[in-house]
């Protein structure tokens, strides 16, 4: 078994009267790509800040590489690469200056760890004389990642690195993260995009400060007990309204041009088809499908 990199035990955090985290516990193995998935306000940032020693938990303990996040904060700061939500870059410094600055702050040089960041930095190296403020979202994200990695951290904590970044850059970013896994770095990423969960080794689904589930994406999907159907017809919205009115419906959600439907009990497809045809739906199409993380998330939300 791989050694433990992060161990969170019963962490709670309250701001004034708002509970940001409630009794959160989970473990992350060394070298894992771990995703913390949930909407805004779920407590993702608070949890990452606690791990990065920026916040103190009200209750509970956590260790990073066997260092306690409260007592051994100095040690943790030496081995952590942290990328804050709004990429912490100096907008008025050039790409190269930003990177050099973070290198000196961590007592290293660009040359020393160039191998580690080469794959990422090479994308933006042609623009190294450009100010960070003039970069596109995708390029900023790559620069921020390079800066967070320049000191060869043992653990990389990234708070919503893909928020506000276009779909293409998001995809590229995840490809880079997956390639980084070879370097024995534990990587923690938070994101509100459910589709990114499937790229992680392990994910925690969070909602309102509570962990809904922690497991591999496959196991989370495997734990989905209901039969999920994919349903479409020519008039999707009316189909949705009719399905919401249907007595056996457990849940019905829009997914692009389709509906994802679960029923309270097994109903024969014919009965369902009949129900819908009575209401004049044309081009009916239904099939059983396996759920994705978003389906699982919503199911867990409803249960919670």
């Amino acid at each position, binding site marked *: 078994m791989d050694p433990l990199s992060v161990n969170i035990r019963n962490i709670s955090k309250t701001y004034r009267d708002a509970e940001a985290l409630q009794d959160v516990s989970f473990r992350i193995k060394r070298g894992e790509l771990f995703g913390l998935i*949930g*909407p*805004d*306000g*779920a407590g993702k940032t608070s949890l990452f800040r606690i791990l990065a020693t920026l916040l103190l938990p009200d209750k509970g303990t956590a260790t990073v590489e066997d260092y306690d996040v409260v007592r051994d904060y100095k040690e943790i700061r030496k081995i952590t690469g942290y990328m804050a939500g709004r990429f912490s870059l100096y907008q008025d410094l050039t790409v190269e200056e930003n990177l050099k600055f973070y290198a000196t702050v961590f007592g290293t040089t660009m040359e020393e760890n160039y191998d580690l960041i080469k794959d990422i930095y090479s994308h933006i190296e042609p623009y190294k004389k450009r100010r960070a403020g003039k970069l*596109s*979202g*995708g390029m900023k994200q790559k620069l921020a990642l390079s800066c967070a990695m320049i000191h060869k951290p043992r653990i990389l904590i990234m708070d919503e690195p893909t*928020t*506000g*970044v*276009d*779909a*293409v*850059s998001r*995809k590229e970013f995840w490809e880079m993260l997956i390639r980084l896994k070879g370097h024995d770095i534990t990587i923690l990423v938070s994101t*509100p*995009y*459910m589709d990114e969960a499937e790229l992680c080794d392990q994910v925690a689904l969070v*909602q*309102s400060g509570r962990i809904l589930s922690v497991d591999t994406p496959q196991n989370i999907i495997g734990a989905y007990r209901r039969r999920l159907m994919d349903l479409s017809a020519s008039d999707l*919205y009316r189909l949705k309204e009719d399905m919401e009115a249907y007595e056996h419906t457990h849940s019905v*959600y*829009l*997914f*692009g*041009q389709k509906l994802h439907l679960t029923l309270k009990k097994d109903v024969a497809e014919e009965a369902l088809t009949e129900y819908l045809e009575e209401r004049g739906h044309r081009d009916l199409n239904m099939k059983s499908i396996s759920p994705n993380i*978003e389906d699982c*998330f*919503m199911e867990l*939300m*409803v249960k919670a």
Partner: protein
Amino acid sequence: MNRKKTVIRVRDMVKKFGDFTANDRLSFEVYEGEIFGFLGANGAGKTTALRILCGLSLPTSGEISVAGYNVYSDREKIKKRIGYMSQKFSLYEDLKVYENIRLYAGIYGLSRKYIRERTDHLLETLGLEGVRNKLIAELPLGWRQKLAFSVAVFHQPSIVFLDEPTGGVDPITRRQFWDLIYRASQDGITVFVTTHYMDEAEYCDRVCIMEAGRIEAIGTPGELKGKYAAKNMDEVFIKIAR
């Protein structure tokens, strides 16, 4: 969909900031009652275009009319006919729920009696009667966004502009939000929406994809998927950008 009345007409719209061209000769039309998705990466020029259409800034050149009014000369008239909601700023956090509604409705000159009746109705439909006297700051993000949308269409505008209304919202609330959008569109309100979620692009009647200040593609989701031989809008987007 059959061609209806045009409510937004944009011809060769250009917006420059110094020597930077944020919008490069955009041309498109939006029809009455449709949900029009405006997609693109951050910095592609979406927000600039949105601000011009809302009458918040003037274009450098081009012919643009919104709700039948010219954006150069009738900006104040335009503002009366539209609603606007953004992810960042929507409601005053230190005002109560009903105070926010009253404030916005008052801005559009609606009568007190009308405001009172509609407020009750609105809170009832949203299931928010219980929080009528709560501060906005105390509500969860998802509720706030739903309320903000309802406030933006409170005065029955002919067009409502939504700037990333669902960013960071949980998947269930996100879908409930789209139900609201859909209902507004059924009531004949044209919806102009920007989003980063590609599955939401599929909910639109037509989408327009921007890239570096230009329109790269425009059409119904079905047309675009066919044109780019893509399974879903995510792929369309990636194929366009690459």
